[in-house]
């Protein structure tokens, strides 16, 4: 900027700058330096040529002036130092000097040149038709700083992204995959993660190279790990050996992707996990590529720390969820057996959505067989259905239970599992519901679980010929089952009884119903009827709405009835999950 405005005003008065008839830099552009516009305040006149020469000579920026023929007519001290090849009186016709003064590029624009081991910023200006001047500035130090800054910024961005990506998954393979995806090409031409052997004699690995970015996977025997320099040590968690001490020529072929060519540089570094090594990272760059310098080694160590933490968290999670799966397997609803003449379909929706288990339960027991088939179908709500039986299947003589224990989540699920297990055992000695229920009650009262309150419906299902089913129902403190007749009418089962696990004495009024082909009996939990929601979000679903919905299901297969009722209930809740919900339909198979 020009100095204070008052001085600028003086400059205008004195008419300085262009006083000697030398044209200034092309019109319309701001002069690069403001000195030319500064007035000589002490004398009130322009400096003479000698003075100007001296000033130019001392300028820190190199200045070269050529005449119309390209002959160098002047160069100052800085220019002589930066480009000694430029000599006054000559035309720099070839070589690096010519390259500097090539006259290319727009006037006034700065261009960078590598010159004599320096980085020069060169700008050209024309003065009239006769003279051109080049301004040379040494920016080597500046650009080195900028390059270092950019590299540092690149590394920081890389580590930020690595942290973000690696912390995403709790899956071991996905974490390892993310690590190699990130490492190539930023760190190396190919990257391999060798996962911790976890007590086995072999270790799994994942590899990616920059050429096709295709993930490759495999396993190596642990004794083969010794072939890779530093790998055994890295897998054991010893500190990494500096890259320059590793001989890339010793790398066995299986480490590098096919067609990779010889490795020029190698890093093998442990992935430090939470206390135990989480495997190792093997990085290779091609022969001829840059070596792993100190900065690169530091970056690799930081990256390995992040990848190691992610992989070891994932291993821990996998281990825990595997244990969890084994423990909770018995608590999931069973897949329903195929019974001749009967369609069975059920659905359980746990309020705790991630765990799938809760206090509602159902089960089916086939007398004479050890237990109902266990395991579950893969669906989220564990919707089971045994309705697809063709001519096969056991004769219809089964006991079905649907119940609800006090509470939610895993604690309730454990009690529900105990009830199912207890019933299975009791069925070995007693099959009559009216005797079974008091036995179960006594067992619950003796249970160490606090408040082992349970409500349930027990239903014995028997085919009685002509496609009819006889269903014996015992209701212990539970919502009475609903019966859908062929004409679409819905009735409540008259059976009643007291809740279990509270009082020593149980009261039970069982009932027996007959289902004609196509008719069904619905067992359900209060999570269905006591769901608050609906259009206003505040209404309870209630038994009447359930009866109306069931009436609309006449003629549907059992699986469709369960799905429709569950859907209506889910819609009613409008996405609010409040309680566990259970539905189980026993339907007499319609005649074909």
């Amino acid at each position, binding site marked *: 900027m020009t100095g204070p405005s008052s001085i600028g005003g003086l400059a205008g008065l004195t008419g300085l700058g262009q006083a000697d008839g030398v044209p200034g830099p092309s019109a319309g552009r701001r002069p690069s330096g403001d000195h030319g516009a500064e007035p000589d305040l002490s004398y009130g006149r322009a400096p003479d040529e000698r003075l100007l020469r001296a000033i130019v000579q001392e300028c820190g920026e190199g200045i070269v002036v050529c005449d119309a023929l390209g002959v160098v007519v002047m160069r100052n001290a800085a220019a002589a130092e930066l480009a000694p090849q430029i000599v006054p009186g000559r035309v720099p016709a070839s070589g690096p000097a010519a390259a500097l003064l090539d006259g290319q590029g727009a006037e006034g624009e700065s261009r960078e040149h590598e010159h004599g081991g320096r980085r020069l910023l060169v700008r050209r200006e024309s003065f009239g038709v006769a003279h051109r001047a080049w301004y040379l500035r040494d920016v080597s130090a500046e650009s080195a700083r900028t390059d270092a800054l950019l590299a540092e910024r690149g590394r920081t961005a890389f580590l930020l992204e690595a942290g973000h990506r690696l912390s995403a*998954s709790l899956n*071991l393979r*996905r974490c390892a995959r*993310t690590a190699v995806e990130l490492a190539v090409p930023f760190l190396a031409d190919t990257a391999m993660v060798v996962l911790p052997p976890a007590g086995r004699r072999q270790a799994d690995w994942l590899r990616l190279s920059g050429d096709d970015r295709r993930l490759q996977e495999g396993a190596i025997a642990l004794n083969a790990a010794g072939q890779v320099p530093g790998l055994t040590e890295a897998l054991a968690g010893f500190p990494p050996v500096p890259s320059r001490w590793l001989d890339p020529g010793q790398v066995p072929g299986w480490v590098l992707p096919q067609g990779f060519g010889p490795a020029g540089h190698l890093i093998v570094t442990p992935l430090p996990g939470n206390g135990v090594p989480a495997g190792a990272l093997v990085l290779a760059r091609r022969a001829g590529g840059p070596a792993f310098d100190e900065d690169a080694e530091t970056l690799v160590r930081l990256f390995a720390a992040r990848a190691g933490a992610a992989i070891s968290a994932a291993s821990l999670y996998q281990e825990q*969820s595997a244990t969890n799966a084994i423990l909770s397997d018995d608590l999931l609803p069973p897949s329903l057996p195929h019974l001749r003449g009967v369609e069975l379909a059920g659905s359980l929706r746990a309020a705790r959505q*991630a765990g799938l288990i809760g206090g509602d339960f159902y089960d089916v027991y086939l007398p004479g067989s050890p237990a109902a088939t266990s395991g579950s179908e893969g669906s989220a709500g564990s*919707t089971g259905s045994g309705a697809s039986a063709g001519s096969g299947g056991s004769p219809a003589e089964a006991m079905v239970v649907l119940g609800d224990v006090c509470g939610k989540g895993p604690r309730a699920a454990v009690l529900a599992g105990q009830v199912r297990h207890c019933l299975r055992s009791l069925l070995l000695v007693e099959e009559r519901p009216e005797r079974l229920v008091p036995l179960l009650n006594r067992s619950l009262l003796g249970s160490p679980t606090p408040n082992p309150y349970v409500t349930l419906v027990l239903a014995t299902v028997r085919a009685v010929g002509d496609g009819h089913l006889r269903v014996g129902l015992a209701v212990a403190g539970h919502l009475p089952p609903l019966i859908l007749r062929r004409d679409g009418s819905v009735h409540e089962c008259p059976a009643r009884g007291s809740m279990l696990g509270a009082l020593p004495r149980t009261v039970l009024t069982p009932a027996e119903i007959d289902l004609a082909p196509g008719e069904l009996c619905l067992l359900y939990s209060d999570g269905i009827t006591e769901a608050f929601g609906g259009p206003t979000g505040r209404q309870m679903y209630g038994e009447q709405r359930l009866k109306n919905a069931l009436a*609309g299901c006449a*003629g549907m297969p059992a699986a469709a009835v369960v799905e429709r009722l569950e859907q209506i209930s889910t819609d009613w809740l409008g996405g609010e999950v409040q309680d566990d919900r259970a539905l189980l339909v026993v339907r007499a198979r319609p005649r074909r």
Partner: protein
Amino acid sequence: MTAPSTASAASAAGLTGADLVRAGEDYLECVGRADEFAAVDLVVDLLRAGADPERLLLELVAPAQRRIGELWAANEWSVAREHGATAVSERAVAAIATYVRPRPTRGRVTVACTDGEYHALPTRLLAEVLRLRGWRVDFLGANVPGPHLITHLHQSGPDVVALGCALATRLPRAHATITACQSAGVPVMAGGGGFGRDGRYARLLGADAWAPTADAAADRLEREGVPALPAVPGALAHLGDEEYTHLRRRRAELLEGAMAALARTYPPVAAYDPQQLEATAEDLGHLIDFLGAALYVDDAPVFTDFVGWTGSVLGARGVTAEALRVGLGVLHDELRDFPRARRMLVQGIEVARITRADQEN
């Protein structure tokens, strides 16, 4: 849906397009009377005769399912019949899956429906097509709660999640699920009518890929593979006006106000019994939900298409679109501070007016 390549493959197996069309009529007849055995026998017989299982899924089961939806919309089939038919179709698909079980040779895919979504069959078809093409598939079924899906992703570590969404009203949930999957490090391929005919909402909500049909999805995965690292979730700038948020928050209150206003402005409502009133509230609720979805993706056709569809469904049941028009007008008046929603409602009212005019002609 009929790709030329599959057509030639099937004719090599001795099954012409005409055969399939005929079989399709029989099939629709079987599922229409919820005859599970007949439907299963029909597909198994076709498989025994050498039919390509993927063609059966896409050219027999899928068209029948679309037809079932149309028959319900036209009031020719009851809800019960529609549900029974769908359940039987599920069985037929299961039978095809049991009959043909190729060894997995490709990666692992998790297939799931959006939270709250019960139209599982199209997604199930995708799962089976991918299985037939050699993918290892985990099919999680209908109405998959977000937390359950994420737990599954951490445990099984699939290469990609295929997320189905049939109804636009589930798009906000689908968005949350897409973001959650990506945050768990797994890319998402979206599919299903909810994402728009050209998949525009899949792109808007940041899905890593989109495919219009099951075979297109399988082709895409084969051709382009799966993205290694998922996209980084972005934000939807238009939600800054909070119209969607307030509409969701005030849904119950809005519905109550709208029902009261409807009773004042539309005389026939006075004679409705409680069940009819509840059904009306439900219809208005659906309109609000689709309006919400349209606000969420900032695209009026999500709403106006639904208005047109509702008009035709009501028309098939003898209800005049005048009721629809009045209902929309009531919502328009209630939503005073919602300029974006009101513009969409004005367009919806116009659609209802045209539908009514069509009905009268």
